[in-house]
C-alpha cells in the first residue's frame, strides 16, 4: 500500500510536470443540452490536450437515470474515471465507504485554497480534512426572470421585486397572460419553494430551518409568510402546463408568460432566443427582496481505482477543471459563475455581473443539499408537488406538514 502510494505520488508529480501516456478516462455527466454540452466540451478539450482520451458517458436526466447509474457503477466495482455529481450529503456515504478518491494532493500542489472562491465550495467537498471533489462552476437558484416587453406592452412598469410582481398579476391575467411560468417536474417545485424561503424569508430563516432543524420555528409565523408567498405563487402559475424548465422559459420568451423563477442557467435560453439582458428581460436576484444566493454548483468526483494510469488521468482532469483557462471558457458556455477568485468573466451579462457582485459581497447561503439529506429534500419535494398542484391545499396545512418534516429531518 505504501509502495503503491509512493508510486501514485510519483505519477502525480509526473502528471503535473508533463503530459503522460494516453489513457482513456470515462467521464459520466448529465450535461446533454446545448449549452451544457458546449461547456463540457471545454473541459474535455482541455483534458485531451494532456494527451489523454476523454470517453464521454453522457446520460440525460440527472435524477432519474444518471444517479442510480453512477452509484451502481461505483458500488458495483466498475467505476468510471470521473463523474459529475452535485455537492452535498449525497456523495458522503460513498466517501465514507471508501469508494472515492481524495484529490487533496492535487489541490495542495496547485494551491486551490487560495484561488477557489467562495470557500464553501471546497468545504462541501471536504470530508475529514480531505478534498474529495472538484467544483467546476457555481450556479445560483434565487432569480426571478421577467420579460420586459410583456409588462411595458400592457402598460405596466417592470416590477422591481416580488411584491410588485404579485401586484401586477391581476392585470396580466386580464390580458390572458400567465404571470409565472413553471414546469411541472418535481425538482422545479422544490426549487421554487426554497427560493421563496431564501428570498422572502431571508437567509437566516433558511438556515435556521434547514441547518438548525428548528421545527417550532418552521411552524411559526416567519415561515408562514413564505407559505403565503408560495400560495400566491401557486395562483400565479395557474395555466403553466409544461413539463421542462426550458419549456417554461419558452412560455416567457414567447410572451405567454410574464416571469419565471429559475436558476441562472435559464439565462442561456433567453440569450439564445435573441433577448438581451436588461433590455428584453430583467433579472431579480433574491426576487428583489433578499439578495442572497446559494453558491452551490456542480462538481466532479473521482472514484477510487487501482490503475495508476487512470489515477494520473484523474489528477490531470482535476487540474484542468479548475484551471483559469477552462474556467473562463466553461462558465461562458454554461452561463455559470466561475469557482475562482482570479478569473474575470468574458463579456458578462448584467445579470451575471449582479451575481458576481453578490458573491463578492459574501451574500451566500448554504444549499439545502449540504444542510439536509437527499431523503429530507425528497420529502420536502413531495410536499411541494402536492401543494403546488392542488389549490385547495391550504398553506397552513402545508406548513404544519413541513414543520413535521423538519422535526424529523436528517
Amino acid at each position, binding site marked *: 500500500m505504501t509502495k503503491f502510494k509512493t508510486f501514485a505520488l510519483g505519477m502525480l508529480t509526473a502528471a503535473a510536470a508533463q503530459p503522460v501516456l494516453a489513457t482513456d478516462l470515462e467521464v459520466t455527466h448529465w450535461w446533454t443540452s446545448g449549452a451544457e454540452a458546449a461547456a463540457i466540451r471545454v473541459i474535455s478539450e482541455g483534458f485531451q490536450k494532456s494527451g489523454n482520451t476523454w470517453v464521454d458517458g453522457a*446520460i440525460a*436526466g440527472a435524477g432519474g437515470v444518471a444517479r442510480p447509474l453512477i452509484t451502481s457503477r461505483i458500488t458495483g466495482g*466498475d467505476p468510471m474515471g470521473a463523474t459529475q455529481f452535485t455537492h452535498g450529503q449525497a456523495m458522503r456515504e460513498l466517501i465514507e465507504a471508501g469508494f472515492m478518491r481524495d484529490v487533496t494532493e492535487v489541490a495542495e500542489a496547485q494551491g486551490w485554497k487560495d484561488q477557489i472562491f467562495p470557500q464553501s465550495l471546497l468545504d462541501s467537498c471536504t470530508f475529514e480534512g480531505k478534498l474529495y471533489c472538484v467544483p467546476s462552476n457555481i450556479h445560483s437558484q434565487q432569480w426571478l426572470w421577467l420579460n420586459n416587453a410583456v409588462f411595458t406592452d400592457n402598460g405596466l412598469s417592470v416590477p422591481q421585486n416580488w411584491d410588485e410582481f404579485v401586484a401586477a398579476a391581476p392585470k396580466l391575467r386580464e390580458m390572458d397572460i400567465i404571470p409565472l411560468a413553471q414546469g411541472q417536474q418535481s425538482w422545479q417545485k422544490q426549487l421554487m419553494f426554497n427560493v421563496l424561503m431564501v428570498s422572502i424569508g431571508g437567509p437566516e430563516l433558511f438556515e435556521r430551518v434547514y441547518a438548525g432543524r428548528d421545527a417550532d420555528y418552521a411552524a411559526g409565523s416567519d415561515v408562514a409568510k413564505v407559505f403565503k408567498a408560495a400560495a400566491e405563487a401557486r395562483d400565479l402559475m395557474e395555466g403553466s402546463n409544461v413539463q421542462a424548465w426550458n419549456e417554461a422559459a419558452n412560455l416567457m420568451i414567447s410572451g405567454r408568460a410574464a416571469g419565471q423563477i429559475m436558476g441562472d442557467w435559464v439565462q442561456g435560453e433567453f440569450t439564445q432566443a435573441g433577448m438581451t439582458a436588461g433590455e428584453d428581460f430583467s433579472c431579480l436576484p433574491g426576487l428583489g427582496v433578499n439578495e442572497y444566493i446559494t453558491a452551490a454548483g456542480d462538481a466532479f468526483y473521482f472514484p477510487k481505482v487501482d490503475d495508476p494510469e487512470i489515477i494520473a488521468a484523474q489528477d490531470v482532469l482535476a487540474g484542468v477543471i479548475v484551471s483559469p483557462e477552462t474556467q473562463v471558457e466553461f462558465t461562458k458556455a454554461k452561463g455559470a459563475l466561475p469557482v475562482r477568485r482570479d478569473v474575470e468573466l468574458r463579456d458578462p451579462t448584467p445579470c451575471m455581473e449582479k451575481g458576481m457582485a453578490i458573491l463578492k459581497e459574501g451574500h451566500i447561503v448554504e444549499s439545502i443539499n449540504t444542510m439536509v439529506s437527499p431523503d429530507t429534500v425528497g420529502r420536502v419535494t413531495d410536499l411541494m408537488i402536492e401543494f403546488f398542484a392542488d389549490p385547495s391545499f391550504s398553506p397552513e396545512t402545508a406548513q404544519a406538514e413541513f414543520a413535521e418534516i423538519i422535526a424529523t429531518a436528517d
Partner: protein
Amino acid sequence: MADVTANMQRPSPAHASGPKPRRAFSRNNIVIYGILVVLAVYYLLPFYVMLMTSLKGLPEIRMGSIFAPPMEITFEPWVKAWSTVCTGLNCDGLSRGFWNSIKITVPSVFFSIAVASVNGYALSMWRFKGANVFFTILIIGAFIPYQVMIYPIVILLREIGLYGDLGGLVLVHTIFGMPILTLLFRNYFSSVPEELFKAARVDGARFWTIYLKIMLPMAVPIFVVAVILQTTAIWNDFLFGVIFTRPDNYPMTVQLNNIVNSVTGVKEYNVNMAATLLSGVVPLTIYFLSGKLFVRGIAAGAVKG
C-alpha cells in the same frame, strides 16, 4: 388422446373459424368495418403524427397543426437523428448505438430463449421433484418490478465479476426474460403429446437428444413468438442497458433518451420523432413482417394453459 401426427403437422389452427362468412355489404359488415376503422384511427394516430412531424421543418411545426401533413417534406430530421444530433459530446446521432443494440440484442435473445426453452421442456416433460416450486417462483418473479432488483443484482454481478461487462448484461436479460418465456415454452411443450416423448425414450433418446432432435424442430412456431417478444423487449430496454454496461456499449435507447430528454431552447420535435421512429425500426419491422407468424405461434401453444 388425439392423433399426434396430424396434430403436430398442423400446428396452427390459425384458420379463420369465425361464426360464419358474411355477405359483402350486409348491415353487420358495415358495423364491423365501421368499428374496426374507428379503432384503427386510434391505433394509427400516434404513428401518423410521429411520421408527419418527423418530415416537417421546425418552423412548420411551430405554426401548424400536428395532424396536418407536411407542406414541404424534409428528410433532414431523419438524417440529423441518425448521424449528427449530439448526445453529450458525441455528435454522431443514433448510429452510434445501433450496432451496440445489435451486439446486445442478438446474444441476449439467443441465450434467454435457449435457457427458457430448455426450462420449459424440462418442466413439462421431465417434471423432477420440486420443479413446480421453482416454476412458481419464476412466475412470481415476472411480477417483480425491475427497479426493485437493480441494487441486489448489481451486488450479485459484482461478486461474480460480470459487472460492467456485456456478458453481465446478457445474463441480466436472460434472467428477466426467463419467467414469461419459460411459461410460454412450458405451455407449448405441455401441449406436445406425452407419447411422443415416451416413444423417443424407448428409442434410446436421452434428455438432450429428445430436446434437440424431437422437441426443437416441433417448436418453431413458439420460437418465433419468443424471438419477437424478446427482441422487442431487449431492443427497447434502457434501464439495464445503461446500468449494466459502459458508455462504449450503450444501446440506442440511451442515445434516444439523451436526444429526447436533452433540453436546448426549442425542442426539436421533428428530430425527436425521427429518432423515436428510428429506434423503433427494428422491432417494428419484425412485427410488420412476422405479425402473422406471431398469431400462429401463440395459437400453436402459448395459449394452452
